[in-house]
């Protein structure tokens, strides 16, 4: 109530103001990028290229869907990149160990997938419990686990690379390279995760609680909401999303090393923020995050296709766009 009000506007302006511009900014950015891309290179608007972009965006996108829950709930998870690397390494080692025994290769892969999903849940729960039960800042806890997971994968790989057994690669390959109805599997997975995430966030009690907690934890507590439980669950969802990304990622290269998943946490957080979710929590949209993730991978793609800017500057352009996106949101909030 204490915000200074500007002089009231005529009604058409008032109506324009009611359009959720802030929510549309990411979409506008995406459209702009597509236009720029298609002007710069004829190959840009081909379905092969676009599917390629979408496939690449799937890893970060899926992780960012989980990140949307964490950030809206007022938290942050910096450990996702290392967690992905660790889960990849552990999954490959496990599958290699099981291979050649009595279990068929398909069975081995299935066991691997199941174990990764379970471990993702556990890793997320560990983050969440340390934060809620241990009452430690999310930034600190996940900074700690970022270091832990990264060193664990380095240790598992003994400083080198962990490679998946060749026979298993053949079986597992289609999960990344295959397609269904002409659409690559990772894109399907991304879509399914996004839709489920959106339903959970926007249509269920849990999602409402996450937003309530992110906007004021005390109010949520006094409203008899199990704050600690809900917050922990956001990290569990984040862990599960990382595991799903890993399941798609391992067949891509068939290996993991100490440099797997480096800076994924930044890209995932960037996708969430570009998508219009408030970094301080309380509000946000899954579809915004999806747009954000696609935008990030489009930028890389446009830079790749054209030679206007070196592709090594990809990070710079992404960084500028992140800062710009937050700046635009700030401007819209009127302070």
């Amino acid at each position, binding site marked *: *109530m*204490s915000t*200074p*009000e*500007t*002089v*009231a506007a005529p*009604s058409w302006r*008032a109506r324009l103001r009611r359009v959720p511009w802030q929510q549309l900014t990411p979409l506008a950015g995406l459209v702009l990028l597509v236009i720029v891309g298609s002007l710069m290179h004829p190959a840009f608007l081909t379905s092969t290229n676009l599917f390629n972009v979408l496939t690449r965006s799937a890893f970060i996108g899926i992780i960012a869907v989980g990140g949307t829950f964490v950030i809206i709930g007022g938290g942050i998870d910096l450990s996702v990149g290392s967690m992905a690397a660790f889960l990849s390494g552990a999954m490959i080692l496990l599958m290699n160990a099981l291979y050649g025994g009595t279990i068929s290769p398909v069975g081995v892969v299935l066991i691997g997938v199941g174990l990764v999903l379970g471990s993702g849940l556990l890793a997320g729960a560990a983050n969440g419990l340390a934060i809620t039960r241990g009452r430690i800042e999310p930034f600190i806890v996940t900074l700690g686990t970022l270091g832990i997971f990264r060193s664990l994968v380095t240790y598992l790989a003994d400083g080198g690379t962990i490679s998946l057994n060749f026979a298993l690669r053949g079986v597992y390959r289609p999960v990344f390279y295959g397609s269904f109805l002409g659409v690559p599997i990772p894109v399907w997975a991304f879509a399914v995760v996004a839709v489920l995430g959106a*339903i959970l966030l926007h*249509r*269920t*009690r849990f*999602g*409402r*609680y996450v*937003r*309530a907690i992110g*906007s*004021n934890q*005390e*109010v*949520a*507590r*006094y*409203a*008899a*909401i*199990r704050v600690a439980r809900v917050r922990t669950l956001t990290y569990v969802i984040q862990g599960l999303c990382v595991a799903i990304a890993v399941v798609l990622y391992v067949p891509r290269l068939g290996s993991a090393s100490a440099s797997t998943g480096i800076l994924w946490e930044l890209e995932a957080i960037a996708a969430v923020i570009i998508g219009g979710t408030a970094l301080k929590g*309380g*509000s946000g949209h899954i579809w915004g995050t999806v747009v954000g993730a696609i935008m990030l991978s489009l930028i890389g793609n446009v830079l790749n296709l054209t030679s206007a800017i070196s592709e090594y500057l990809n990070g710079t352009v992404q960084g500028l766009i992140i800062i710009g996106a937050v700046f635009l949101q700030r401007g819209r909030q009127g302070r």
Partner: protein
Amino acid sequence: MAHEPILSGIGLSKSFGPIEVLHAVDVDVRPGEVHALVGENGAGKSTLMKLLSGYHQPNAGEVVLDGRPVRFPDSNAAEAAGIVLIHQELNLVPDLTVEENVFLGREPHRFGLVDRGAARRATAELLATLRTEVPVTRRVRDLSVSQAQMVEIAKAVSREVRVLCMDEPTDVLTGRETEVLFDLVRRLTADGVAILYVSHKLDEIMTIADRVTILRDGHKIGTFDVGDLTPAEMARRMVGRELADMYPPKPAVPDDAPVALEIEGLDVPGFVHGASLRVRRGEVLGIAGLVGAGRTELFEGALGLRPAHGSVRKDGRPVRWRHPEDAKLDRVAYLTEDRKAKGLLLGKNLRENVVLQSLERFARPFVHLRAEQQALEGAVEEFDVRVARLDVEAGALSGGNQQKIVLAKLMLTEPDVVILDEPTRGIDVGTKRQIYFYVGELLAKGVAVVLISSELPEVLGLAHRVVVMHDGAITGTLDGAGLDEETVMAYATGLRRDPPPATLESPRVHT
């Protein structure tokens, strides 16, 4: 009075979006006078003050200072001209110290550095004149609400002030602090400062104000000399009709009414020791005591909102509520005294707020927006929430209407024991009466009500029995019939103290 007004508003109108909330209101304040603004919740009192002090810009009309039209682009410009507003809601930075808050943005400098010493001395002096004993180095976060309010007042008068606008300043103050504030007001007016004063406490207005302007639904009803009005006339002009009895009849609690909630030997470390009480169905149990006596903490402890130990029984069954949700499942609900920080998601819309505590009824498993909207419309109707549009954020409501939303949120959980902590804080007389009668209806339905309140008249008017607390302990449990304020105050200040009641039948087992 001979004085020309310092500050006046002429034909001030204000709209938020398409809705005009203030319609061509004239008001003026003269040097040395206390000019009160009264009106129902949402009548536009805060809005009018904000127009005069640069926080809002009028859509029509003008602000006149010393006979010349002025336009304050923002509150800083108004403050530079000596017009300072103390907000209805606290406006301090929680993580800064008292001294840093008082001098925020105008720190005294010496050799290019902030002169901490000077700022501290000045703050300490100010607080001493306000007889508020808080260390200037304490963080505002760690102050009680009433202490924070005194700091807010200190901050306001630390400037060159000519017109001091106070929006419900005594809302969170104790009786003693209110006295101190009134002393300050008298000193300021003696120096020729003009005071614009909003309050729902009409007796305060009779005490302190010289003139009163009455607003109703954004219209000015008139300006009167306070001596020409009785509180009842003032109330009638505010609400536009005669207000009959303030309190509903107090039906006797049937002798066989079962005990709904029983607390025995409850300790809340640091706040309450050995508290025992019981409330029966159809009964109002008043909880009186000075601010800081541990009334809030007692019930927060019992309901799992803060650590506590002791025994609690609901409907005769021992319960152990570790989390507010446990209490909710046992149909016990607590209305917080701090609606801004604990009661409302100020940035969320009314619908999400009102269903927050009973969402399981609206989300099975998917949220059902239409049912939620209906619940909101029902609540707005039942609690008479005055709001032009239902899709606004909770923070845009006037204080009293916010309180009604919190109450509605609580009642949607259909509790059979309700604990109301300062339920009428910041609420206008008409609405207070509605809430009192609502409590009456709850009793008829067999609900047990606990009423924690610093307003003794409402405790005496509603409660069948009154538990009085002093310094974390229960000093007496008094029969509400024929009870008077003096007796309650004697227990509240610890002058009188009954032996701990041996009336609770089950003797405590010490282990």
